[in-house]
């Protein structure tokens, strides 16, 4: 498998620590150019969709959609089709099902979880039936961006363009429905249709991101950047931009690290995402970064507030 060889390919020579030379070295390989193109396109979409996933508190749905997609991937491998198409087919079906549940989706964790488990079982059956090389199925679980073909890169970039265009088209109603569903409905927004549309975009984003991070590690690309950005910026537009930027930077860094070390891309993606998330959380729970920094600059204010609070408690 190309990917196995590719991982740590640059490790043989090692980085020169000259950033320009190292990037040039990396991009001199066609498989690295393909990997960068496809993962940038998927990360951009994952970052943007992920912000709304966090805003709509539907990360469990995202998780479930990707796992249901695994059955599609395994089925596709069995019949000799590109596994990503299998992921897309079943993810879309799952997203339509969940989207039609709409508002009733909340509190359906048990049903979604059971459908997810059944799909994973089905996927496992398909893999055990498959007589060929199981690497393809393994790649769906953990991602295998280094193995991506030129055709798959084209499909990925095209899918990203479609998702971006559709997301832009429903941006304002989606934001309204995500923040304030009842008022949005009263203002004439078809919140059910907007929610269904979003779930389908989510399924496409999942199908793309699976190539980078795999089904099991999708949270790192799809949820972490949005969660981090939502903690840093209070302006939705700024948070969206940061979320997309973080997703792209995490994938770029992971590709480079995987190129120069013997460890896989998705390990770096999850680790970087987790470390960044921990870092932002450590900066302050819920309070914006800037306010936290401002508070650090004028330390006299906070103890005063605490004293006031203590005084109130005593009285």
């Amino acid at each position, binding site marked *: 498998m190309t990917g196995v060889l590719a991982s740590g390919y640059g490790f043989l020579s090692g980085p020169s620590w000259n950033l320009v030379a190292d990037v040039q070295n990396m991009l001199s390989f066609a498989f690295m150019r393909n990997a960068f193109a496809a993962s940038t396109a998927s990360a951009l979409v994952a970052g943007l969709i992920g912000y709304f996933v966090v805003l709509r508190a539907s990360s469990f749905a995202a998780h479930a959609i990707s796992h249901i997609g695994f059955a599609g991937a395994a089925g596709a491998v069995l019949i000799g089709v590109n596994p990503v198409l299998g992921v897309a087919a079943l993810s879309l079906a799952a997203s339509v099902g969940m989207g039609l549940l709409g508002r009733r989706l909340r509190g359906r964790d048990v049903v979604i979880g059971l459908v997810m488990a059944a799909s994973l079982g089905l996927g496992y059956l398909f893999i055990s039936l498959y007589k060929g090389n199981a690497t393809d199925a393994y790649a769906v679980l953990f991602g295998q961006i280094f193995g991506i073909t030129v055709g798959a890169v084209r499909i990925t970039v095209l899918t990203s363009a479609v998702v971006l265009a559709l997301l832009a088209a429903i941006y*304002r109603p989606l934001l*309204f429905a995500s*923040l*304030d569903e009842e008022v949005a409905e*009263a203002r004439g*927004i078809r919140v059910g249709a907007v929610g269904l549309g979003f779930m389908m975009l989510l399924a496409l984003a999942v199908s793309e991101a699976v190539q980078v991070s795999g089904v099991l590690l999708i949270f790192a690309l799809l949820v972490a950047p949005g969660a981090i950005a939502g903690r840093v910026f209070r302006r*939705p537009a700024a948070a969206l931009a940061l979320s997309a930027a973080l997703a792209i930077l995490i994938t770029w860094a992971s590709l480079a690290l995987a190129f120069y070390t013997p460890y896989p891309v998705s390990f770096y993606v999850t680790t970087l995402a987790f470390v960044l998330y921990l870092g932002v959380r450590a900066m302050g729970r*819920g309070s914006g970064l800037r306010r936290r920094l401002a508070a650090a600059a004028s330390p006299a204010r906070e103890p005063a507030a605490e004293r006031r609070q203590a005084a109130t408690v005593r009285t």
Partner: protein
Amino acid sequence: MSGTAGSAAAAAARPVPVPAGGPDRPEAGSPAPVIEAAGLASGYRGRTVWSGADFSVGAGELLTVLGPNGAGKSTLLRMVLGLLRPAEGTLSVFGGAPRRGNPAIGYVPQRRTLDPDLGVRAADLVGLGVDGHRWGVSVSPHKRREKAQDVSRALASVGAAHLSGRAVGRLSGGEQQRLQLAQALVSRPRLLLLDEPLASLDLRSQQEVSQLVADLQAEHGFTVVLVTHDINPVLGVTDRVMYVAGGGVSVGPPEEVITSASLSRLYQADVEVLTDSRGRIFVVGLEAETAHPHSPRGLRP
């Protein structure tokens, strides 16, 4: 704030826009009613919650809708918003059939407090009221500037200018209520529907919010329909009250509707209305109705 004054005194102290030519019908010659209902019934899936409602709400009026949980108060608002079709009878809003997304209507739904982790700015939440229902992404810098002005004006009008940059999830219940009011006002509605705006607020915030609604109404002249389960915080500012209970609806000035005789008739039960030394009203004898809002007696076929 005259919330501690007696109901009759409060009603007299405030000019009532709809003349007392009959509590349910505005006088001939007055401007067309904002909401008009005839034989209106509310219900869903074949179950009628209340029926036989005839009333109209005049321009610039503040109508308070009272009644126990599950009596169908919010249902009335949903019908006015065009989100629910009347089970029977007719309902007209601004002289036409209710329609979804009418920009002339501002709506503040009944609210549990917002997710404390919701890190979105207050100004962005209010801004949704300007263009949140439009497709696409706003790119025009001119429109963006205009929107920012509208938002800061709306925030200032509810006394929440200082909250503009704060994360909405971190605000108190009273502060969130002001934001939602600002969001409803930012599109300059002619009718404001408020569903339990005072619930889950402390006593002082209740007084502040109801006074704020009255002040805004006096300034802008819009019509307000305010749903609450406790009349006392709005006694000083409401023009008329509507009692939704026992499968029916009763409308009139507070001193006429909230009486032992009137409520006993409406509920078909022994209801006692008590007034304490500070003019606060207590309705006694509805405990069973509140506990079983859908009891057979409460439903009319």
